[in-house]
């Protein structure tokens, strides 16, 4: 009975602006290390793609500790982009990831337009890297005032300039700390982004009431985890109506149902962040749960669900 067997096969593959992923699961930057840490727990080649830790031009020590606080169904982090800087990254990290067989995205953060361009330039032509994710949204950096990603003009300009330099997949990562995220998504699209990823963390803080001081060393930080999922889904839903490039949905995903929710809202792929910190091999479970859903609803191609709630 070949039909029966066939009906048990599901196509989880996703087309991300021309890049084919075997499934929609992409690690979210900063929550999954750089590959080998998770590879201790499962074969990371099973992921759709891997987003590396945020990288800056100069090395950064990151913020003062404590850098993490727990909140209801969420966490606040203020890592502050601890990283060895782009040159060290190219020298040490890139050779390390070369052994894996899956697309790697490089998450880049700059403190000026020039820095973004320098980062893009240095990553250009690196065959180990399948794409660059421009992080315009990190709220942790003390860089004078609001994040780059709150002004559509700036977003357009940076995207356009990076686009000129960088020829592979260009992802722009959006901040949720904004009145209308769809404007920023449109700016990224106009600037030439191949896709947007959303959302980054929500500005938040926790106070140590016994010490009567902010709990985090850097006073405030970014909220992630299941708590933020309902806000993230809404933003993906709104953005899907406005742009024609694919969306990587991120925010509080912990199981296959959450991935389906983001895809129905309009996401083409799903970033998994905080869940990996609690369950290193969550991706394997999630892939299974996605298959269970497809089976239950007799759906062959996962990608047929993208944006389906809008119909």
């Amino acid at each position, binding site marked *: 009975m070949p039909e029966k067997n066939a009906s048990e096969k599901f196509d989880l593959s996703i087309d991300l602006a021309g890049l084919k992923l075997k499934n929609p699961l992409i690690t979210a930057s900063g929550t999954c*290390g750089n590959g080998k840490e998770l590879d201790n727990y499962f074969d990371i080649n099973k992921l759709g793609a891997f987003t590396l830790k945020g990288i800056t031009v100069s090395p950064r020590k990151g913020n003062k*500790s404590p850098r993490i606080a727990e909140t209801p*169904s969420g966490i606040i982090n203020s890592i502050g982009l601890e990283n060895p800087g782009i040159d060290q990254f190219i020298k040490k990290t890139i050779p390390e990831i070369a052994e894996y067989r899956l697309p790697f995205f490089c998450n880049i953060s700059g403190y000026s337009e020039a820095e973004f361009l320098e980062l893009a330039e240095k990553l250009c032509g690196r065959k180990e890297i399948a794409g660059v994710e421009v992080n315009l949204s990190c709220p942790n950096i003390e860089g004078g005032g609001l994040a780059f990603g709150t002004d559509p003009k700036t977003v357009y300009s940076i995207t356009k300039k990076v686009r000129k330099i960088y020829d592979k997949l260009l992802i722009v990562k959006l901040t949720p700390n904004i009145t209308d995220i769809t404007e920023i998504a449109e700016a990224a699209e106009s600037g030439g982004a191949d896709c947007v990823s959303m959302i980054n963390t929500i500005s938040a803080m926790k106070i140590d009431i016994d010490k009567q001081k902010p709990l985090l060393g850097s006073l405030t930080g970014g909220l992630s985890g299941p*708590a933020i999922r309902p806000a993230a889904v809404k933003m993906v839903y709104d953005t899907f109506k406005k742009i024609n490039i694919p969306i990587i949905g991120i925010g509080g995903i912990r199981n296959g149902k959450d991935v389906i929710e983001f895809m129905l809202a309009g996401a083409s792929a799903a970033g998994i962040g905080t869940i990996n*910190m609690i369950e290193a091999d969550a991706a394997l479970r999630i892939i299974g749960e996605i298959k269970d859903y497809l089976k239950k609803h007799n759906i062959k191609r996962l990608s047929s669900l993208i944006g389906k709630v809008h119909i």
Partner: protein
Amino acid sequence: MFEILKNKEVGPDIFYLVLKCDELSEQPKPGQFFNVKISRKLSTDPLLRRPFSVFDFDEDQNILELVYRKVGRGTEILSKYKAGEKLDVIGPLGNPFSTEKRSGLIHLVGGGMGIVPLHYLARTLEKGEKKVFLGAENSDELEFFTKRFKKMNVEIHRAAMTEKMEIKGSVLVLWMNYLDQEKPLFVYTCGPEKMLSAVEKECLKSSIQGQLSIERRMGCGIGVCLSCSCETTEGNKRSCVDGPVFTLGEVVLNA
């Protein structure tokens, strides 16, 4: 999922948690820790796991013993679990104490719940001369630990802040009294960072080698998130995978 065999109060807000863990990938080493999910399956709150050091491990029966103090929401919820329930626990995690054979006197200096990893360590260093220095607020907090240390070949010295044991005061003072008279070959220490810092200072001054275990607030416990970074002589390191055990002098402590 590990089954809870026992979860009972053995001192003021101090709980003794015994787990049957058959599916362990490797045997835990002293100084390593386990990361315990506090929430029920399908509940996302509390979200993060809680790290606890190995208090003891029985390799024949795969029985893991932890000791924890009820200090916040997570440990309060944990204290309500009953024998027979299951817990989602991962580990062993982290870089252990070095337990190479040393022919000479060894000091173990523990303050508060920092005593926990020193117990399994002392058990593992079975042979050889050892002195253990235990400090806490009061003698009740030390009762359970004392009982267990008495079962092995180790000399016990105790100090409490609010009542006179060997002395009334900090374990640091107690330990330094001994340090005046003898020079140990190696010192292991775990406890509040202030204490670690003082122990380290004394050891470095007298060129005594040793290791400390630090407790930094953790996110993942597996090296992916950089929540637990600490500054060291060789740049930032992650206390969850590069630590929690470090060589004396290696880490910049918050004193």
